[in-house]
Each structure stands twice: as structure tokens, then as C-alpha cells.
């Protein structure tokens, strides 16, 4: 196997990193060239990811090692779990880029925006392919830094406040994470991500230390995953432009946190150790609390994007919950939600962006009758919302179904209760919106058809239909569900 | 003679105390200058006549002129201080306590180390034959540890550049020559013997107390005298020959160190048959640079010119 092929993760990473560098170097001067490069890079990445997907499916593991600090390597490692995240981000990067190009047309500082946007995706790629905690941390921080300019992009004082809150939370979180990583390093030396974990030997000798480390790592990542009570940054970050919110919620930041938690539980501590030390239970409780809390808060939001943000707080915790339940079925549910939630949430945010951009609508009570004026957009919004609620056969249902199965199988029936309650709450905060959009009369006079421009609508349609498809065709061979089943199989039978 | 030593030490301490606590700045400066002279005397007592010469010429003489000249340029009444005594404030008291403690420990440490080997010093005395000069201090300065001396010339040059940047000459129109012609006549009378003794000191450095620094300081003193009496004044025009002379010492020193590497195999080593002439050459060039640098530190101008009546 040639080294160039072996180094695929590096190329995937570089495809967005170099794009970012070129965009920065070009400056504001060459918009067409910039857009071309951006799209070309996104397409190239998609192709590369496709190649890798084939490889991993065939059982190949890509791995690149760079010595970084004495005794510590930067490892880029593409396994099945990485591919789940990578594919999602590669596809959604393309969609979001197209969307953002249309969304930000004629607004200032676009080069800066797209540069950091690409950087953000590069960081996500790094997080997905990180082969040890150290590498993970490197890209995790890079993500923090690359996202901040996007959050404050508008440069208003509100955006600045959001940026400050974002930084306070995430930098605080990464400090905690770093502490955890250093402690782990001093306890056990360099640890790579290996299915089943590598810390079993230390469980007997030093359980307190492991508990502390686990708590630190999960707290550090929980900040980005917006676990309650450290979710505060997410709703305020809603001031960012819609594509940024979409990216933040569906792919990059929140998912990075959730993905990190998955890595820690699966590949650092290992499911058995997590369970035997009692961490899994605690994590499940925290996730459940976040699910309910986020949904409750969402009900009282009047701003569309804020309501979606609290919805994210709630939905991302499904992933954590799935992992924390620590049995194969629940794990399938949690992991597949990583993809499903991403597709659904990005659809919803794209729609919110369309509303805002086309008609200047931000608040929910302005949505009256929007379905007649923007039927396609609203249809996609409906798809996403119903999927979130978990209506069969949409994507959300698949996730919740497996989670429920897992809870039953694991004998944790209270989780089923949580799921049901959450579904009810989801319905409470989504259905009124749908009702307004479709059945309420539009405000006087202007009820002409005014759909969003194609550059916005296209990605929205694509994301919405994809969200629909992953639910409908969940049984197919190449669906995320099938992939996750494969993955969980590998994880639980080392 | 212990009585004299004790008296000297006591006077040094009293003057130091006076220098710190005097209410008027002028008194503090005067105390400092007198202290410098007494220090020179003490160093003669401590078998260090060349250092005494240097201290008297540079430390007390030249520095004294500089201090007084600067004092003149301060606004009247500046630098008066009200509360120099330890009992006049808690900060003072703490500082005093700390310094007393330090003094006690230092004195004990100095007392403790009155005996012991000195490998470097012994080696210097043992290798004096090869150094090209008979005077141990000159040998150390120009040969054994020539590198220090060379870098020191760099310090001199840099402070000179810094001083010139400030454009605050000590010797300018504000300091008019006295109405009486006597000082000028005196300066004319004294110039030849001073120059002679300065050059002699440089030359004598090879075998008896003296050397480039002492001689250079005396020559600079001659310049200062001329400047003070108005025979010479600073000018804002700097010219090439002057700049060349200012770096002459350092440049010659470095170049001879570098160019002779093929002959000796070491940087700043001198072949045996050339060592004495080289030492003398370097010593004189250093003295010229030192004298000019010190003088221009005094005038604070980038150039010098004669005053024509």
C-alpha cells in the first residue's frame, strides 16, 4: 500500500486547510476565484472521503503519524467511527458552502468568513481522524479558534457578547480537557484510541484518578457538546449568520464535543470499564437531564433560531445518552443520531436562514402563513421538524427507536420514559410552528409566492431530502444505520 | 597603620551615609566625589595603585565634573529630599533593615573568604613571561582576558551613541568661559605636562602602574579642561576622522585578534615575537579611543572643534 494512499486522512485535512490558506492569501480581491477554489476544495474532499470510505469498508485502516513532542505523536487515523463523522462533514461542508455563498452575497469580509469557515472544517476533519487524545485536543482547540471569528462575524456588539461567552465557555472547557489529558498522560503514558479502551489495567490500582480524569475529560468535551449545565454559549451564539449556526449545530462544534465523548467512552476507557466504574450511569443521567431541560427551554423561546438552538442542546444529548447506555442497540441509536441529527438540524437552520434572508423573519410569530409564500422551504422545515419529533419513518424515529430498544435491553426503563417525554416536548415546541406556517393566514396583503433564491433553496432541499432519505432507506447497505451497525459490531466484539 | 585604615574605612562609610541622606543634592554629589578620592587613597593602601589612579581620574575626577555639570542643568531645588532616614517611614525602615542585614552577611562573607586559592590569578602571574608586558594587570586586560576589554570598548561606544542621541551637551553656549583670561592661560600652561603624563601613563602600563585606561582618562581630562576653559568646544558636525579614531581601539584590537588566527591558532592570541609591539600598539590605540569617548561623553556632542578667539 503506497504511503500516499496510507496518508489519506492527511490529504483530507489539507484539502480544507490549504483552501483556507489560499482564501486568506487572496483577500477580498478575487471573489470568483475564491468561490471556485472553495467549491473545488469541497468537491475534492468529497472525492477523497469517498475513496477512504471504500477503503475503510474493506477493512483498511488509514493511519498517519507525525512526531510532535518527545513521546507524543500527532496521529491521524481513519477508522469506521471517524468515517461516520468525516462523511457527514464533507457532505455538509459542500452544502453549507454553497448556501453561505448565496447567503453572504454582497456582504463585507467574505474572504475572512470563508477562510475561517474552511479552517473550521479542517479542524473538524482533524477531530474526526484524531488517533489519540493529544491530537484530538490540538484540533479541538483549532476548532475553537476558527469558529470564534465566524460567531463574531457581523461585528455588532451583540455578536461580540456572543463571541465572548463562546470563548469563555469553550476555552474554559478546553483548559479542563487539557488538564484531564495531561493527568491521563502522566498516569498511563501516551494512549491511542483503540476500540475497547486501554485503561483496564489501571482500574484496580487507581480508580479515583480514573474517576477524576473521566470527569475532567467529559466536562471539557461537554462544554462543546452543550451538556447542561455548560450549554450557555450555544443559544447566545445564535447571532452568527445562519450558515455558521448550521455548521455549529449540525457538524462542527457541538458534534465535535459529542464525538469526543464517544471517543473517550469507547476508545480510551472502553465501554466495560466505563460501566464497571459507574461512569456510564452518571453520564446517562446528565444526558437525560440535558435532553429534558433543553426541550423545556425551547418551548419558551420566541426567536426561531434560539428555539432551534435549545432543540440542539436537547438532541445532541441523545448521542451521549446512546453511548452512556452502553449496550449495542443503544449505541447504534446514539451514533446514528450523530448523522441524523446533523442532517435534520442543518435543514432546519437552512430554512431559518431562508426565512431571515428572504423576508427578514426572525421571530416565530412572524411565521404566520409562510408556507404559502415559501412552500419548498417550509416543506423542508416540516420534514426536519417532524424528523426531530421522531415521526416514523423519518430519521429521528430510527435513532429513538434504537435508543429505546437499547434501554429496554439494558433494563433501564426510565430512559424510555425520558425518550417519550422528550418526544412529547419536541412536539410541543415544533408543532405550533408548523401550524402557524401552514394554517395561519399570512399578514395582510403580501401573500405572493416569494421563495428563497436558488443558492439558498438548493442546499436546503438537498439537506432536507437527505434527512428524509437516511430515514426512509435506513435499511439499505450504504445507509448511515448500516454503517453504524458495522461499527458497533466491531466495537463490541474486539 | 591599621589606625589609618580604620579611619579611612570609617570616613568612607560616613561619606556614603552622607551621600544617601544629604538633604541637598549638591551636598550628596560633593560627598560622592570626596568618597571617590578617599576610595582611591584606600586602594593605594590595598596594593592597587593602578586602580587608584583610574578611580581618581575616572571615578572621582571625570565623573565628578559630569555630576556637577548635570546638577547645574537641573531646575533649581530639584532633588531635595525630605525623608531619607529609616525612621521617617515604614518603607524606609524595611529597606534599612534589609540593607543592614545584607551588610552584616556581606561583611561576614568577605571576612570568611580572606584565605583560599585563586587558580586564575596564580596562572596569570605564572604566565606573565609570555604575555608581552611586565605589569600583571595590563597583561590580564590586554592579553589573558583581552576579550573583556574589547567588549568593554563596545560598551563605551554604545553609551556614546546613546548620549549623542539625547543632544543634551554639558558644554555648550550656556556655559560661557569665565570673564578672566587666567584659566585659559593656565590650561595652555598645563596642557603639555598633562598630555605628556597621559602618554607616559599609557606607555608605563607595560611595566608599572598605568595603562590605556588611566592614560586615556588623563588625556580625556586634558580635553575636559580645554572644554571647560573654552579653548575647545563641542560641535554638532561629526566627521569621518573623529569617528575613525573613536573605533580605532576596538577595530585594531579585533582585527589583530582575527588576522593573527592563522599564526597562532587562537583568537586574540599573539605570536611570541610580535607580542610586545602589538601590546603597545593596541594600548595606544585603545587609549586614544578611550580618551575621545570619555571626552565626548562629557561634551555630549558628536564633534569637537577649536574655539578661535
Amino acid at each position, binding site marked *: 500500500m503506497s504511503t500516499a494512499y496510507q496518508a489519506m486522512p492527511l490529504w483530507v485535512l489539507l484539502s480544507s486547510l490549504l483552501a483556507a490558506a489560499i482564501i486568506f492569501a487572496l483577500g477580498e480581491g478575487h471573489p470568483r476565484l475564491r468561490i471556485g477554489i472553495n467549491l473545488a476544495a469541497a468537491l475534492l474532499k468529497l472525492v477523497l472521503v469517498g475513496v477512504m470510505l471504500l477503503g475503510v469498508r474493506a477493512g483498511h485502516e488509514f493511519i498517519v503519524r507525525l512526531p*510532535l*513532542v*518527545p513521546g*507524543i505523536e500527532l496521529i491521524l487515523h481513519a477508522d469506521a467511527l471517524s468515517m461516520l463523522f468525516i462523511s457527514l462533514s464533507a457532505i455538509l461542508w459542500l452544502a453549507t458552502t454553497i448556501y453561505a455563498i448565496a447567503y453572504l452575497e454582497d456582504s463585507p469580509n467574505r474572504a*475572512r468568513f470563508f477562510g475561517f469557515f474552511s479552517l473550521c472544517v479542517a479542524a473538524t476533519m482533524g477531530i474526526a481522524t484524531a488517533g489519540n487524545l493529544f491530537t484530538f485536543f*490540538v484540533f479541538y*482547540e*483549532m476548532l*475553537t*479558534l476558527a469558529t*470564534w471569528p465566524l460567531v*463574531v462575524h457581523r*461585528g*455588532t456588539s451583540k455578536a*461580540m457578547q456572543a*463571541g465572548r461567552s463562546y470563548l469563555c465557555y469553550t*476555552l474554559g472547557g478546553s*483548559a479542563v480537557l*487539557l*488538564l484531564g489529558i*495531561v*493527568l491521563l498522560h502522566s498516569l498511563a503514558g501516551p494512549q491511542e484510541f483503540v476500540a475497547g479502551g486501554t485503561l483496564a489495567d489501571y482500574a484496580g490500582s487507581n480508580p479515583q484518578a480514573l474517576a477524576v480524569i473521566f470527569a475532567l475529560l467529559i466536562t471539557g468535551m461537554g462544554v462543546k457538546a452543550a451538556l447542561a449545565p455548560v450549554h450557555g454559549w450555544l443559544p447566545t451564539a445564535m447571532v452568527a449568520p445562519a450558515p455558521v449556526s448550521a455548521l455549529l449545530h449540525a457538524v462542527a462544534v457541538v458534534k465535535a464535543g459529542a464525538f469526543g465523548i464517544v471517543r473517550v467512552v469507547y476508545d480510551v476507557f472502553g465501554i466495560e470499564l466505563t460501566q464497571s466504574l459507574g461512569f456510564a450511569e452518571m453520564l446517562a443521567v446528565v444526558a437525560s437531564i440535558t435532553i429534558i431541560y433543553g426541550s423545556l427551554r425551547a418551548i419558551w423561546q420566541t426567536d426561531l433560531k434560539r428555539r432551534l438552538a435549545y432543540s440542539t442542546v436537547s438532541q445532541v444529548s441523545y448521542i451521549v445518552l446512546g453511548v452512556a447506555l452502553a449496550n449495542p442497540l443503544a449505541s447504534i441509536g446514539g451514533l446514528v443520531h450523530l448523522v441524523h441529527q446533523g442532517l435534520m438540524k442543518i435543514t432546519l437552520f437552512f430554512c431559518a436562514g431562508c426565512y431571515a434572508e428572504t423576508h427578514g423573519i426572525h421571530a416565530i410569530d412572524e411565521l404566520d402563513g409562510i408556507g404559502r409564500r415559501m412552500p419548498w422551504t417550509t416543506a423542508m422545515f416540516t420534514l426536519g421538524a417532524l424528523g426531530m419529533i421522531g415521526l416514523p419513518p423519518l430519521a429521528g424515529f430510527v435513532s429513538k427507536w434504537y435508543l429505546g430498544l437499547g434501554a429496554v435491553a439494558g433494563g433501564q426503563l426510565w430512559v424510555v420514559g425520558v425518550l417519550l417525554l422528550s418526544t412529547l416536548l419536541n412536539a410541543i415546541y415544533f408543532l405550533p410552528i408548523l401550524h402557524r406556517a401552514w394554517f395561519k393566514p399570512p399578514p395582510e396583503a403580501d401573500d405572493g409566492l416569494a421563495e428563497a433564491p436558488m443558492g439558498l433553496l438548493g442546499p436546503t432541499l438537498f439537506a432536507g431530502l437527505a434527512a428524509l432519505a437516511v430515514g426512509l432507506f435506513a435499511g439499505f447497505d450504504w445507509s448511515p444505520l448500516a454503517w453504524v451497525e458495522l461499527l458497533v459490531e466491531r466495537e463490541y466484539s474486539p | 597603620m591599621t589606625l589609618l585604615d580604620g579611619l579611612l574605612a570609617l570616613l568612607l562609610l560616613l561619606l556614603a551615609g552622607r551621600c544617601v541622606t544629604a538633604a541637598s543634592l549638591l551636598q550628596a554629589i560633593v560627598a560622592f566625589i570626596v568618597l571617590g578620592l578617599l576610595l582611591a587613597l584606600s586602594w593605594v593602601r590595598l596594593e592597587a595603585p593602578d586602580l587608584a589612579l583610574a578611580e581618581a581620574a575616572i571615578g572621582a575626577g571625570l565623573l565628578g565634573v559630569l555630576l556637577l555639570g548635570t546638577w547645574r542643568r537641573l531646575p533649581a531645588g530639584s532633588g531635595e529630599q525630605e525623608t531619607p532616614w529609616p525612621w521617617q517611614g515604614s518603607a524606609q525602615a524595611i529597606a534599612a533593615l534589609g540593607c543592614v542585614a545584607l551588610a552584616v*552577611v556581606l561583611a*561576614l*562573607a*568577605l571576612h*570568611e*573568604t580572606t584565605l*583560599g586559592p*585563586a*587558580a*586564575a590569578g596564580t*596562572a596569570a602571574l605564572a604566565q606573565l613571561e609570555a604575555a608581552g608586558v611586565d605589569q600583571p594587570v595590563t597583561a590580564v586586560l590586554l592579553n*589573558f*582576558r583581552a*576579550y*573583556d576589554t574589547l*567588549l568593554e570598548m*563596545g*560598551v563605551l*561606544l*554604545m*553609551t556614546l*551613541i*546613546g548620549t549623542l*542621541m*539625547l543632544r543634551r551637551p554639558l558644554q555648550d553656549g550656556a556655559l560661557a568661559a569665565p570673564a578672566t583670561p587666567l584659566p585659559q592661560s593656565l590650561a595652555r600652561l598645563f596642557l603639555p605636562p598633562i598630555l605628556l603624563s597621559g602618554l607616559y601613563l599609557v606607555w608605563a602600563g607595560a611595566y608599572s602602574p598605568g595603562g590605556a585606561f588611566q592614560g586615556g582618562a588623563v588625556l580625556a581630562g586634558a580635553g575636559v579642561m580645554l572644554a571647560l576653559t573654552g579653548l575647545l568646544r563641542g560641535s554638532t558636525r561629526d566627521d*569621518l576622522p573623529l*569617528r575613525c579614531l*573613536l*573605533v580605532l581601539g*576596538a*577595530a585594531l584590537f*579585533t582585527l589583530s*585578534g582575527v588576522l593573527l588566527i592563522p599564526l*597562532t591558532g*587562537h*583568537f*586574540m*592570541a599573539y605570536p611570541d615575537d610580535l607580542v610586545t609591539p602589538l601590546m603597545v600598539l593596541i594600548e595606544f590605540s585603545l587609549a586614544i579611543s578611550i580618551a575621545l569617548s570619555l571626552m565626548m561623553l562629557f561634551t555630549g556632542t558628536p564633534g569637537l572643534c577649536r574655539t578661535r578667539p
Partner: protein
Amino acid sequence: MTEALPVLLVFVPFLAGLGQFVLGRAAPWCQQFVSGLNLILVLLLSSAVVHGDPVIADLGGWGEPLAIHLQADGLAALMLLLTAVLAVAVSLYAIPAFRDEPRPAWRFWTLWPLLLASLNALFLSRDLFNLYVTLELVTLGAIPLVLLAGPNKTVDAALRYLLFALLGSLVYLAGVALIYAQAGTLDLALLPAALPEGTLSGPLAAALIITGVLIKGAILPFHIWLPAAHGNAPAAVSAILSALVVKAAIYLLLRLWTGPLEPLVSNDAGQLLGALGATAILFGSWQAFRQSRLKLVVAYSTVAQLGYMLLFFPMAVTAAWQGAVYHGLAHGIAKAALFLAAGNILYYLGQDRLEALRGIDRPLAVSLLAFGLAGVSIMGLPPSGGFTAKWLLLSASLQTGQWWWTTVLIAGGLLAAGYIFRVLRLAFLQADDATAPHHGPVPGPLMAWTATALALLALALGLISAPLLDLLGEMPGGTS
């Protein structure tokens, strides 16, 4: 052949400075040549050091214990490398920065090679008294450079700097005197064996030397001269001062602590120094956060960042050694980039009050990028040299069981993020009116890209630490 390298490193720039002085007008190209040659010489020297024993030059050939030796070991080679890289960058940057001012330009191009020679001399010296002379050279070269920003504006800062520096070096010299009294030699290599034990003057000398160096290095109680001097100097000079000149003092401390002073110092002294460093980190960062002028923010950041290097002393293991030295490198590069970027902003705006920075990201995009990237290293976020250093120090603190330094390191990083983002956010804030008043032209590409190149290098240091740490080697005299 290799023995000539240390000598050339000192004398090539020294003679260049003298030549420039005699020439009497600015000749920037000469300095470009010198800094390039200097870099080549340092690279040659580093390759010689990494392949074998330290390179030693015996000046005058008088041998131990009399002669002064120049010695380049791993630590010295790294510091020389830092100096050489920064010399190239700063020399390039200074061409446009001093172009319009012929007289200051001449002084800059005279003093800067002399200062470069002094720094090289300091890093190469193996003699306690010669170190005193080089310390003085470095300081007295640095202060006139500060004055280049205009004597009226900088005279207070320069005077304060001079007073503290003089006091520091004399206190150091007092320590050297006591050491010589006991050991009879000044050679660093001979001192550990020559120092008798159980004397009063040994620890006293160590204390004096350390205090003197701390004053020169602007460590916390003695930091008060630094912000004004570094904040008011021209940008190129501030970069040299913060990245190299104060670093030289800390370098000296590292060198002496692990060498001649090793038998004289106790663990308690190390803890005390560590505590000073920790206080410097917290206090300096806090002060940086409160400043209202950009260059003062950066200057106080130096006060804080120097503290990290002091954390070596309480831990004194190889990881801490590597961490401290690597922090020196990373901070040097990053801080130079920060000052150059700040200089560009100052050049454009004519002032550096923070509120004037609103919305300047358009004209100064590249400089701000440099500021941000260098800030990453200053904050100790990955991937950057600052992070690598912080990681090493963190590991060392856990390895030695001194967990309290961990909290300091992490808190310091967060505070640094505070002041860096405080600047960056202003640049992102929308200006009230589109055409904000500005003073000068947009800095040219040379000014903007030298800063960016340095900032990128600071990040790259996070990826290429292995060969550099190899060059550094283990802690001298350390067992672990």
C-alpha cells in the same frame, strides 16, 4: 574549523556595527548580509553541536583556568538560533520602518549589529565575569535603541531601564566577586568543582547573582521598568527587547542554576523562584488585560510570559528544562511577531489606543492575522510552540507531584486568551463610520509579511519540536 564559529558569531556583527558607525549613514543592505551570514553560521554551529560535544573556543590560547572560553552547547545553540532567526526578520522589517528617518536609521543600523554581537557573545560566554560585561553590553545597546522612538517620549522609560539594569548588573557583580573569592576561577565549567561547600558566602553569592539577573530579566518585583521601555520603543526594537534581551537574563539564570550554582541552591530557592514566576504570570496577564494601549498589552504580556520560564526552577527535571527553554523560543518568536504586528497597526493609525482599533481588519488584515496567530502561541493553544512548552511544563509538574503549578499554567493560558481576544475583538468590531481616521499609509508587504512569517513560525514550532529538543538535550547534571 568549528572552533572559529563562535568567534565569528561575535565578531562579524561587531565589526559590521563598527563599520556602520564609521560610515556615518544608514546602509540597511549591509545588515541584511550580516544577519544572513549570522544565520548560516548559527546553523553550521548547531549542526556541529548536535553531532557531538559542545563547540569550544579558547580565546588567546591560555587554557583553563585563566582564559575566557566561548562555548556553544545545546542551550546556547538554541538561543543563538532564536536570535539569528529574529535578526533576519527584524532586519528586514526595519528597512521600511526606518526608511523615512535618516538619522535614527543610521543609529539603528549601527546599534543593532552591535546588539546582535552582544547577544551572541552572551549566549556563547562561559565566563562569569565576561557574562557581566556582555550583560552590560546588551543593556547598554538596548537602551539607546529604545530612545530611537524619539527621546522626548522615551526618556523616562530609558532612564528607569538604565537605573534598574545598572543596579542589577552590580548586584550580579557582587555575587561574582564572592564566587571568585571562593573558587579562584571564573570559568563556568570549573566552578562546580572549585566551589567549597558549607560556606556562608556561597549561598550569598548565589542569591546576589540570581537577584541581579532577576532585575535584568524584569521578573515580577523588578518588572516595573519593562512595560514603559518595551511599550514605547519602535516596534522593531520592542521585538528585539522582548524576544531576546530580557530572555538573555533568564537564559543566564537557567545556565547558572544548572551549572555553577547547582551545589549552592536549595529546593526552597527553586520554589521561591517558581512562586515569583507564578505571580508574574498571573499579575502580568492581569495587567495586560487592563491596559488601554496595544503595545503596553504586549509588553505586560512579556512580564507574564517570562514567568513561565521560571517554573523550571522548582521542578528541575528534564521535562521542565525542555519546557522552559522551549517556552523561551516560542515566546521569542511569537512575541516578536506580536510587536511587529502591533508596530504595523501603530504605523497605520499613528497611535495604538485600543479603541482606535475598531474595524481595522480590512486595511491591516495580514498584520492582524499575524497578531492572532502569534496570539495562539502566547495563549499556549495547539498547535504552537507555546503549547508544546506548556505541555512539557504540565507534564513536569505532574511528574514531580507539584500539581499547584498546573493550575498556574492553565490559569495563565486563560488569562492570555483574555487579553489577546480583547485586542482581536476590537478589530472585528464594526467601526462607527466607514472611513476611520488614520495617520500613515498601509504598511507595505515587507512589514506585514515578516510579522506573519514569524507568527507562522511560532505555530510551526509546535510541529517541529523534536529536532530542536534533541539539540537542547537533557538537563545538565540532571538524573531524570
